[in-house]
C-alpha cells in the first residue's frame, strides 16, 4: 500500500482499541446509498520505477526548444544552489508558519525577502508574496479601492500595452466588486503610452492608474510624468514592473515627485523555472501608509519572552481567518517555496549580478533584433528605448512561421496578431542572458528559411 505504513497487526490492534470490526465500519455514519461503488477512470497504481519511465517518456516527447519567447515568463540562469536548498524537506514540506517558534527558518527568510523586495522596488513595505503577477495586479487594484479615500470611484486607468492575460485576470477577479477598467491607448509608432494618452481622461477621478514599466511590448514609459499626472488627479499609482529590469531602471518608489504608491509584478524572473507557467509568485510592495490595506501574509520582527529577536506573522487582523467576510482578501497562502527560491536567488546574484543579467538580456535582445531585421521583410515595429523584449513585424502571418520555427526546435516568440490586430503580423520576441550568439544565428537562419 503506497505510503501507508500499517501492518496487518497494526490494523488489528487499532480496530480492537476503537471497537470496530473492520475499517468499513468507521464509515458507518455515511448513508449507505452514497458510498462509492468503485472508481472507473483512475488507472491501477504504478511503482515509482514505472511512473518514472512514463514521466521521462512524456518529458522527452516535449523536448527542449531554444527559447526566444518572453511575454510574462523569462528564461534566466538559476544558480544550482537555489533549488537544491529550496527543495530541502525543511522548506519543501513545512506548513504556513502559524507556529512561529517552530518556523523561524521560513519566517526569517520571508522577512529577508520583504527587505530585498523593498530594496529592489524602492518601496517601504512588502507582503510575503501573492499567487502570480496577474493576480497581484488584480489584488493591488482592490487594495487601491480600499485605500483611496479621495477618489472612491472604482475607475482604473489600465494601459492597453499590457499583457492581455493580465487584463483578463484583472477583469475576472475585480469585476464583482464594481471596479471599472478604462483602457489607455498606446502610440502605434513608439509603442509607449504617453502622458497625453492618460490625460485625455482628465476629470474622471480615477481611483488607480496603472503604469507598466517596461510595458508588454518591452518599451520604456515616461514614468515620472505619468506618476505626477496621476497624483494630481488624486489617483493611487500602481507600478507593474519586471523585477530584473529594476537592477537598471529607476525603482517605482522614485517615480515622479512622490513615487508610486503600490508596486506589483511577477517574481518568476527571480529564480523560478519556466515550468509551463507556474508555480511563479507575485510580489506586492507599497508605501508604509498603505500597509493595513495590503492583502496576503506579512512577516514582522519582534522579540520573545527573553527579549531575543524573532519573526512572526503580523497584522493578521486583516485576514480571512479572523475577519471572515470583512477580510482584505480571501487569500490565505503565499507562494512560500517560490519566495524561498527567489530570496536565495537574489542573495547569490546581488545587485551587481542582477544588473549583469539585465544588461546582457538587453544586449542580446538588441543583437537579436539586428540579426532578424536584416532579413528581408522583417522590421522592428517600434522605435525608442526598450528593455529585453521587442516587437517585430513579419511579411506574412505569424502562426505558420512559428510552426516552421518550432520544427527547427526554436520557440520564436509570442504571436500578437490575435490580441493586437492593429499591429499586423506582429511577433513579440525576447533574448535573455541565456541566449548565445549561436542561438541567435540559428534563429536568424531558421526565420530566413521560413520566410523564403
Amino acid at each position, binding site marked *: 500500500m503506497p505510503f501507508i505504513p500499517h501492518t496487518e497487526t497494526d490494523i488489528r490492534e487499532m480496530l480492537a482499541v476503537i471497537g470496530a470490526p473492520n475499517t468499513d465500519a468507521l464509515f458507518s455514519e455515511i448513508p449507505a446509498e452514497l458510498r462509492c461503488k468503485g472508481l472507473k477512470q483512475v488507472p491501477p497504481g504504478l511503482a515509482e520505477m514505472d511512473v518514472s519511465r512514463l514521466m521521462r517518456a512524456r518529458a522527452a516527447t*516535449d523536448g527542449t526548444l531554444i527559447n526566444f519567447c518572453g511575454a510574462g515568463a523569462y528564461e534566466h540562469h538559476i544558480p544550482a544552489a537555489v533549488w537544491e536548498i529550496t527543495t530541502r524537506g525543511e522548506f519543501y514540506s513545512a506548513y504556513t508558519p502559524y507556529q512561529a517558534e517552530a518556523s523561524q527558518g521560513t519566517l526569517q527568510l520571508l522577512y529577508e525577502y520583504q527587505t530585498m523586495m523593498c530594496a529592489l522596488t524602492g518601496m517601504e513595505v512588502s507582503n510575503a508574496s501573492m499567487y502570480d503577477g496577474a493576480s497581484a495586479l488584480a489584488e493591488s487594484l482592490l487594495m487601491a479601492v480600499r485605500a483611496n479615500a479621495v477618489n472612491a470611484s472604482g475607475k482604473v486607468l489600465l494601459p492597453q500595452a499590457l499583457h492581455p492575460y493580465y487584463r483578463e485576470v484583472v477583469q475576472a477577479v475585480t469585476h464583482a466588486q464594481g471596479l471599472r477598467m478604462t483602457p489607455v491607448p498606446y502610440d502605434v509608432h513608439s509603442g509607449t503610452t504617453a502622458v497625453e494618452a492618460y490625460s485625455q481622461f482628465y476629470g474622471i477621478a480615477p481611483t488607480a492608474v496603472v503604469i507598466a514599466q517596461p510595458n508588454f511590448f518591452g518599451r520604456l514609459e515616461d514614468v515620472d510624468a505619468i506618476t505626477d499626472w496621476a497624483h494630481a488627479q488624486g489617483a493611487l499609482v500602481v507600478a507593474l514592473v519586471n523585477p530584473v529590469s529594476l537592477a537598471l531602471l529607476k525603482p517605482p518608489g522614485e517615480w515622479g515627485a512622490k513615487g508610486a504608491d503600490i508596486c506589483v509584478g511577477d517574481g518568476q524572473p527571480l529564480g523560478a523555472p519556466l515550468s509551463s507557467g507556474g508555480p511563479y509568485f507575485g510580489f506586492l510592495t507599497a508605501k508604509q501608509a498603505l500597509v493595513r490595506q495590503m492583502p496576503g501574509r506579512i512577516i514582522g520582527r519582534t522579540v520573545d519572552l527573553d527579549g531575543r529577536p524573532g519573526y512572526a506573522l503580523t497584522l493578521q487582523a486583516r485576514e480571512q481567518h479572523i475577519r471572515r467576510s470583512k477580510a482584505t482578501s480571501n487569500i490565505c497562502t503565499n507562494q512560500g517555496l517560490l519566495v524561498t527560491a527567489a530570496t536565495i536567488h537574489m542573495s547569490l546574484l546581488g545587485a551587481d549580478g542582477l544588473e549583469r543579467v539585465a544588461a546582457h538580456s538587453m544586449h542580446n535582445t538588441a543583437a537579436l533584433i539586428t540579426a532578424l531585421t536584416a532579413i528581408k521583410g522583417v522590421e522592428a515595429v517600434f522605435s525608442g528605448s526598450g528593455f529585453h523584449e521587442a516587437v517585430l513585424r513579419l511579411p506574412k502571418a505569424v502562426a505558420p512561421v512559428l510552426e516552421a520555427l518550432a520544427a527547427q526546435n526554436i520557440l520564436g516568440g509570442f504571436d500578437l496578431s490575435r490580441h493586437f490586430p492593429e499591429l499586423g503580423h506582429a511577433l513579440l520576441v525576447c533574448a535573455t542572458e541565456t541566449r548565445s550568439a549561436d542561438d541567435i544565428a540559428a534563429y536568424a537562419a531558421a526565420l530566413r528559411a521560413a520566410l523564403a
Partner: protein
Amino acid sequence: MSLAPDPIKRALNGGAPAAAEPLIFEVSRPGRRAVAQSPLATVAVALPAALKRKTPAALPQVSELQAVRHFTRLSQLNFSIDTHFYPLGSCTMKYNPRACNTLAMLPQFLGRHPLAPESHSQGFLACMYELQEILKDVTGMAGVSLTPMAGAQGEFAGVAMIRAYHQARKDEARTEILVPDAAHGTNPATATMLGMKVREIPTDAQGDVDVEALKAVVGPQTAGIMLTNPSTLGVFERNIKLIAQIVHEAGGLLYYDGANLNAILGEVRPGDMGFDVIHMNLHKTFSTPHGGGGPGAGAVGVSERLRPFMPIPVVGKAGDAYKWLDERDLPQSIGRLSTFMGNAGVLLRAYIYARLLGREGMHRVAEFATLNANYLQTRLRERGFDLAFPTRRASHEFIVTLKRQKQAIDLTATDIAKRLLDYGFHAPTVYFPLLVPECLLIEPTETEDKETLDSFVEALCAIWEEAKQDIAFVKGAPYTMPVRRLDDVRAARQLNLRYQPG
C-alpha cells in the same frame, strides 16, 4: 520514537535553544559576490538618464558558500513533515513523496515555456488531461479545470461560477451565500469578494447543520450554500442529501469546500452527494508540498450545468491530440484566474501522486486516514481527554476540547500547542473551529505509523501531568525552539517589516 524526558530537564537546567542565525544582510560585505552566478563579462547598455537607477539596490553581498550556509541553517530552524509529526487539523500534512518532486523537475518540464506550441506540449498536456479525468472520477463531477492557484482561488472560481450561472439565467436576485458557522474563514471572505451577501447557518449539538434553520433562510435570494463535508468539526454531515434537496428546491446551488476531501477519497463522491461545484486542495489530498505556505493548487470540479462557466484554460482532446480550450471554446467562462494555466508544476506533482496511488490507493487514503483518526481519538478519550463530539465517529480528524482543563488548572490550547513543540511534535490546529472552546483539531493523516500516534498520546498526557504540577512552567514553553513565545502584540504595534541598518 521514544519519549525522552530531556525536553523538561534541559529546560529546567536553563538548556540551550538552537543558536540564532544572523540576517543575511548582517553578513553582507561591500564588494563581495558569488561571481560564477552571473555573466562574467560586462556589457554597456544605453538607457535614458531619467529612467536609470541611480543607486544599486541594497541586496546582500555574500559569497556562494555564505548564502548556501545561511539558507541551509535557516531551513534547520523549521519543523516540517520530513522531520516531525504534524497533526494539523484541516491541513492534511501527509508525506510528500520525493518522486513527485524529482519527476516534476525533469529538465524538459522545467524548461517548457507556457506559450510553447501544442506540437511540443503533448507530453505535458497528456498529464494535465489525465489529471482532469482522474479528478472527475474521484469527485463524481462532469468537468474539471486545474487553473486555480490555491484553495481560496478555487473557492473564488466556484462562487464565481454559481454567480455566472444565475446571471446567465437572468435570475439576478440570487445574491446570498449560505455558510455554516463552522466554515473556514475563506468561505465568507470569498463570497464577499464576489459581491455576495453572507448568511451564517447554525450547527446543532451533534455537529450537523441545523436543518430547520436552513429551511427558514432559503428562498429566491439564495445563490448557494458552501459546505465542507466532513465538516470542520471532524464529523460527516449526515443530512447532506436533505440539505441538497432543500437548497436545490429553493433554486440554489451547492458548493463543496474540498479541504477535507482526504476523509472520503474513493469512499464517497461530492457529485453523488448532490454538489454542483467543488474545489480540491491538491496540496492536501494529492500530497503536493505546502512549501512553508504555498504554492497550492485549487482545481475545481463542476456538474454538467456549470461546465460552460469553468475558468480557462482547460485541456481538451481532439482525436489523439491534446489541446488548450480557451474563451473561444468556453465563451461563458468566468475567465482567467492566473497568467497562464495555474501552478503547473504543482499539478504535475499531483498527477504523479495519483498515478503512484492508482485506483486502489485512492480509497486507502480515506480508509487509513480515518483509521488513524479514530484510533487516536479513542486513545485520547481513554486517557481522560474530552472530545467535542463524543458520540460521533471521527472522520479523518477530530476535536479535543480543553474547556475542563482550562477551568481547573488554566491549561489552554495554546499552552499544549507550544509545549508539544518541545516534545518534537508540531501542534494541532488550535482555536478552530471557533465554535468549540479551547479546541485542538487533530488530523494524523494516513501516512503516520501507529508508534508515532502512540507517542503523541503519551506527550499530551505528559504535558497535562506537567501542567497539574506546575502550570507556570507549561505556560513558559517552548524552551527548546530557536525562540521562546513571541510578542505578537509588539509585532503588530511596532511594525518592523524589513531590515534597516543602523
